[in-house]
């Protein structure tokens, strides 16, 4: 009876998780912007907006005011989109300037942006209606690079629910402060190692299997949390730091792919790597502190949770892990796009 109820909770959570991505997926095709620096301060711009049922999406590309067109923009009508090419000169370069997508806020379209600069940096990013612009990061000094990549690291860990969920799972397993310290340190050391190895190009993990494996690591923690909750024991519960280290190696590869896809300055690579890792640590420690504070706050407020609610975090970790595993394996197998 009891077991069946737990299955119910798990099923509901999987169903809920299946719902989540449909919130973020849009049915319209994205717009596309490509900026390529061909010589200093001289850029080629390709701007494609989708056309839906003969209607062009009302998005206007607004380059910084310093941008001067070298050649008149040429427009080309394709079946489903409008292609606009132009060549611009920006006094002082695009670095540190902002490209706006006027009108994007009113749509549900995303813009894929690809930037390639002459100093060797290139990156792709997605601009969403909630923040309808991109800031081109300038070719900064050391401090600027550090700032940019620390912020990038923080953003990556806080906005990547899979890493946070794994950390949450670890938090639910560890019993005392000493063990917490050991576990989090092990996770940090492990992902720092693989992040460095992968970013410096000594090793490489293919993205799709990697994502599936990361999902699997989260799924793995689910049953362990339930065991803790039932008062049982296992190797993971006795030595969570070993598990944290092993899976930390995996997550490090994940961080590395995020870092490289963000574009790396080839001349400041180690420095950017270090800053990114520091940012990841800041985000991670901040999350751990927030969870511990919340837990303490609940005790101060003398909240007595119903048993179902107490079990919820464990099931959330397990169910989302299961969902992502299935989804990513399906993508890997080519069943899903």
């Amino acid at each position, binding site marked *: 009876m009891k077991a069946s109820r737990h299955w119910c909770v798990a099923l509901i959570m999987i169903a809920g998780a299946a719902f*989540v991505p*449909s*919130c*973020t997926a849009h049915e319209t095709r994205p717009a596309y912007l490509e900026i390529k620096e061909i010589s200093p301060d001289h850029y080629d711009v390709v701007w494609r907006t989708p056309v839906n049922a003969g209607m062009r999406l009302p998005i206007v590309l607004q380059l910084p005011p310093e941008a001067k067109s070298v050649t008149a923009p040429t427009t080309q009508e394709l079946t489903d989109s409008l292609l606009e090419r132009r060549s611009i000169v920006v006094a002082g370069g695009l670095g540190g300037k902002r490209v706006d997508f006027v009108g994007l806020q009113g749509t*549900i379209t995303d813009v894929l942006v690809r930037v390639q600069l002459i100093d060797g940096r290139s990156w792709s990013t997605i601009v969403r209606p*909630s923040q309808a612009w991109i800031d081109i990061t300038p070719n900064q000094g050391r401090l600027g690079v550090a700032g940019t990549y620390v912020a990038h690291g923080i953003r990556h860990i806080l*906005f990547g629910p899979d890493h946070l969920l794994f950390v949450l799972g670890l938090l639910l397993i560890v019993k005392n402060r000493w063990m917490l310290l050991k576990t989090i340190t092990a996770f940090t050391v492990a992902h720092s190692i693989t992040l460095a190895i992968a970013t410096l190009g000594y090793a490489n993990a293919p993205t799709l299997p990697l994502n599936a494996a990361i999902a699997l690591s989260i799924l793995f923690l689910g049953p362990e949390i339930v065991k803790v909750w039932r008062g049982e024991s296992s190797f993971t519960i006795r030595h969570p730091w070993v598990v944290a280290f092993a899976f930390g190696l995996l997550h490090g590869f994940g961080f590395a792919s995020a870092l490289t896809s963000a574009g790396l300055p080839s001349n400041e690579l180690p420095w950017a790597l270090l800053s990114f890792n520091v940012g990841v640590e800041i985000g991670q420690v901040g999350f751990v502190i*927030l969870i511990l*504070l*919340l837990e*303490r*706050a*609940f005790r*101060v*407020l*003398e*909240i007595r949770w119903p048993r179902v609610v107490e079990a919820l975090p464990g099931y959330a970790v397990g169910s989302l892990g299961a969902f992502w595993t299935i989804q990513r394996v399906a993508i890997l197998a080519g069943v899903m796009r």
Partner: protein
Amino acid sequence: MYDGLLHFLLSPEDIVPVVALALLAGLRGPEYGRRALFLLPVSWFVGCFLGTMFQWATSWPVAAISFLIFGGLVAANAQLSLRAMTVLAGLLGLVHGWMNGAGVPWSFSLVGAYAGLVAGVFVVVALVSAFVIRLRPPWTRIAVRVAGSWIVATGLLLLGWSARRG
């Protein structure tokens, strides 16, 4: 989800009354803290949907009024009954949630945004009220009341701004 959370954390006109309510509940003790913790997010969530549904926003300076009421109660260290607190928390959530919801066009991703917003409310109330409950030395409780008076002062100035604009 993150949009909602960020929006809340970057909107002082929403976060300050929430903090004020949490301070008030914290001064009164765990029972009040629990009530605020569970009631406020729920009423806020409901308010969001009502606002989105009716698409109507009052021109009243809602934020300033909330600042005055909740800041004033904190500064006065008001000995509210649990029932009065319940009503106040419910109203605060409904009204501010409504203001958040009004003017936002309906879309499916809104559910996620509102969930993020409400999660932010929940976390702020939990942390702030527990922090105040844990305060032991008497002068620290006075510091909480001073914070309440700052909120009132900000509310008064805000009222002045809206009078000037209006």
